[in-house]
């Protein structure tokens, strides 16, 4: 999931008796399947949880450009380069759709950016892993975007209208991302023995971090329980992770690649694959800022923001000057 461990109110879900009349009417709307729109009344906890979730989702799209952007200039062919460029541009677009959705809740774009830059807001743990070679770019599209789709498809039905609509647009484009990734890694898996070895190596390194994208089990989390009651989270982390494994294992088999999990077996009774949990202590270290690339990623974002300041300021000054001139012309004409 692009939003991991999003905190909600922390109080657990209120019973109907504990709710105020407004809260009860609001919960009834959610239960009926109504979409909540920006100007509608909503509990403050709903608003704050959404800002955290959508903000983290948006930041993930933006920071997610960095590991792939790294390979645009080194793509193996012009066609692959054009495709990767289009994909990375989409990620910027996805970030923008999501920032716009978050802004309808009363937070500004610059506030969101500043919260990312000073570490008050997080982005997905997955983008703190390096992309070491071209096979990794295939693995990222196939696995990382594949995991993202698992999470984003149900979010198209989320209760907050602007978030749901952003998800519809994103899901349409995300499918291209996953397919181009699978296509790139397939080329390598079916290539020379050395290329095949690189594809296997990429799968080995990205498998566990991809499973971690869904976050640790949240079956006992009060935060998730509240988010699910408000329909801003539709499935549990474990449900989505299982779905991802079930979908991905046959895709790896087709490529002749081995999923790096000795305990992976098909469980006939459950109708699902059994698999090993990733190392959650690694996940918590990455979230805390100690992953392989956390420092680089934040340095790159801070540099882009600081280096771009004169452009933002200059264009704003130019826009204001044009507005002032237009107004003066209007006054002169009257």
């Amino acid at each position: 999931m692009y939003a991991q461990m999003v905190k909600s109110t922390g109080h657990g879900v209120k019973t109907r008796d504990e709710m105020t009349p407004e809260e009860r009417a609001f919960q009834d709307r959610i239960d009926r399947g109504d979409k909540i729109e920006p100007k509608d009344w909503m509990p403050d906890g709903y608003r704050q949880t959404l800002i955290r979730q959508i903000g983290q989702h948006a930041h993930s799209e933006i920071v997610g450009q960095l590991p792939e952007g790294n390979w645009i200039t080194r793509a193996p062919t012009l066609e692959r380069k054009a495709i990767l460029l289009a994909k990375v541009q989409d990620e910027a677009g996805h970030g923008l759709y999501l920032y716009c959705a978050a802004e309808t809740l009363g937070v500004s774009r610059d506030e969101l950016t500043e919260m990312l830059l000073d570490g008050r807001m997080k982005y997905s743990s997955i983008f703190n892993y390096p992309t070491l070679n071209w096979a990794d770019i295939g693995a990222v599209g196939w696995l990382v975007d594949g995991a993202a789709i698992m999470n984003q498809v149900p979010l198209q039905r989320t209760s907050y209208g602007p978030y749901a609509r952003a998800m519809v647009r994103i899901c349409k484009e995300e499918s291209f991302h996953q397919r181009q990734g699978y296509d790139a890694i397939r080329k390598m898996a079916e290539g020379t023995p050395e290329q095949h070895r690189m594809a296997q190596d990429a799968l080995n390194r990205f498998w566990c971090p991809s499973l971690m994208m869904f976050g640790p089990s949240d079956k006992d989390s009060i935060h998730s329980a509240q988010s699910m009651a408000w329909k801003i989270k539709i499935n549990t982390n474990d449900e989505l992770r299982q779905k991802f494994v079930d979908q991905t294992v046959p895709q790896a088999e087709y490529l002749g690649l081995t999923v790096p999990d000795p305990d992976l077996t098909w469980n006939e009774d459950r109708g699902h694959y059994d698999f090993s949990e990733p190392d959650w202590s690694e996940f918590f270290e990455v979230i805390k800022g100690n992953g392989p690339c956390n420092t680089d990623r934040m340095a790159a974002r801070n540099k882009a923001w600081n280096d771009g300041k004169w452009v933002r300021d200059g264009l704003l000054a130019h826009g204001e000057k044009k507005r002032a001139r237009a107004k003066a012309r209007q006054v002169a004409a009257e």
Partner: protein
Amino acid sequence: MKTEWPLWEVFIRGQHGLSHRHVGSLHAPDAEMAIKNARDVYTRRNEGVSIWVVEANNIAASSPSDKGPLYEPSESKIYRHPTFFDIPDDVGAM
């Protein structure tokens, strides 16, 4: 107070001669840049043939609490729909 680029709402006319439709919003310093940005953000896959942008603070909107007074009166006027009227089969299509 910090000033941010103003927020613009973006409307796109699709391929098939339909009206401009609201697709989302973006920040830009002026209208010209808003159209350029809208082209990059909202038409990467042939979604449109024409773009309108309007500064968000120029939009007036109805309030959610007015839903009742505004829209309920039309609920009882079912005769405004053609299906209200029974036309004998013998008359043919109408």
